[in-house]
């Protein structure tokens, strides 16, 4: 059997990499299992203008590259792999990937949240064929096209504005009359002449061109119940996120929406298991708060490892 690690960090967004940085600097030689969506949601963004310390902004993927290198510099062991199973009810704690099994005294969960989909037929099969959750990745392919953005929060506004660089027209569809987005983002979107608005309206169908690609959306207005078919080749879905907690269901205490419940800082319902970032936060969801909570989880894990309760000691 392989060695028992002090700490395994699952996930590599701002929370996971900050936890890795702090535990590495505490000489705990953390193992970071980066996951399929390595780097987290910032990998899907362009300019990040609200991370303190970068007065001119920094590109999301660049910020993550820096965080990763900083954690590695202090000895964090980063592996490009995906956790398929955990067993948190035994000691040592078990973390499995398709090719390996790792054991640890403590685990820091930083698996984040992933984009939610509308749940309409054909939506999944048309991913990459017109349906997208990543404007920065896919906007390029819609030069001169008419497209739609679904959602009313900051990320929907940001994507709509970004996509007007390529698209000839962006129709923004939101199910409520009011937007959830911050004032500054709403103002940016409202000022953009290429954006058209369909508020108080739901997307009820994504139409297929017969070859598996998007050719339009069917939108129903809530109040009048009138349906409008909007010809678009792209549908960018920005309706929020869902926490990546399926690995922990039945083991850790989760709230009704699937978020990990933390108490007294980053502690979860199992001793030695800590959580940080968007997997346990549906309120703030910022890169800087995720990083802050990653630091908390690292310090909590460090304190825990200093005083592991006797009945949980494995070595």
């Amino acid at each position: 059997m392989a060695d028992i690690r002090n700490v395994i960090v699952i996930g590599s967004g701002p929370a996971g990499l900050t936890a890795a940085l702090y535990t590495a600097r505490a000489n705990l030689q953390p193992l970071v299992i980066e996951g399929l969506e390595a780097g987290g949601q910032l990998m899907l963004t362009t300019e990040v203008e609200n991370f303190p310390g970068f007065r001119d902004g920094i590109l999301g993927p660049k910020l993550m590259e820096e965080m990763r290198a900083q954690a590695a510099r202090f000895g964090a062991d980063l592996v490009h792999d995906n956790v398929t199973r955990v067993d948190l009810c035994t000691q040592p704690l078990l973390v499995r990937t398709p090719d390996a099994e790792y054991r640890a005294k403590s685990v820091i969960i930083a698996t984040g949240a992933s984009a939610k989909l509308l749940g309409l037929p054909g939506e999944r099969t048309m991913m990459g064929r017109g349906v997208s959750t990543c404007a920065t990745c896919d906007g390029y392919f819609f030069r001169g096209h008419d497209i739609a953005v679904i959602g009313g929060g900051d990320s929907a506004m940001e994507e709509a504005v970004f996509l007007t660089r390529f698209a000839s027209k962006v129709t923004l569809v939101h199910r409520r009359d009011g937007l959830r987005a911050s004032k500054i983002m709403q103002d940016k979107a409202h000022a953009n002449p290429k954006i058209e608005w369909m508020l108080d309206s739901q997307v009820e169908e994504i139409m297929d061109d017969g070859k598996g690609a998007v050719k339009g959306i069917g939108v129903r207005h809530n109040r009048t119940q009138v349906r409008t078919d909007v010809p678009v080749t792209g549908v960018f879905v920005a309706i929020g996120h869902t926490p990546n907690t399926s690995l922990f269901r039945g083991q850790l205490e989760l709230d009704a929406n699937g978020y990990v419940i933390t108490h007294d800082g980053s502690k979860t319902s199992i001793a030695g298991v800590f959580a940080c970032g968007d997997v346990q936060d549906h309120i703030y969801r910022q890169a800087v708060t995720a990083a802050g909570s990653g630091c908390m989880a690292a310090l909590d894990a460090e304190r825990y490892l200093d005083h592991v309760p006797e009945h949980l000691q494995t070595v």
Partner: protein
Amino acid sequence: MNEHVQTFTDNNFETDVLKAGKPVLVDLWAPWCGPCKRLEPTVDALAAEYLGKITIGKMNVDENPDVSFKYQVRGIPTLLLFKDGQVVESIVVLAHKEDLKKVIDKHVGATQADDLQNVTAKPA
């Protein structure tokens, strides 16, 4: 990017992909695409594992727009698997290496691996 990963362009696409003797996996990417960076180590690992069986290469869609336009690519990263000049698989979601192998293996039978002696050991 390791030495087993080729670079495809609009210019060499016809000869190196469409007219290649073996199946070819083309990784369409761009420097501004974060998820494409995530896929890079997986593609590198596949290139080492499938050495001699299939050719694996990357194509920058920014510099080579013709191919992505021709195949109606609307998002990246996209992996296209070509066999005898035809697209036999198109993978547009981030997938784990093991899942990608299952897709590739459908098109790469043991009989086609005529260069088996060149297959390198699985990287640790």
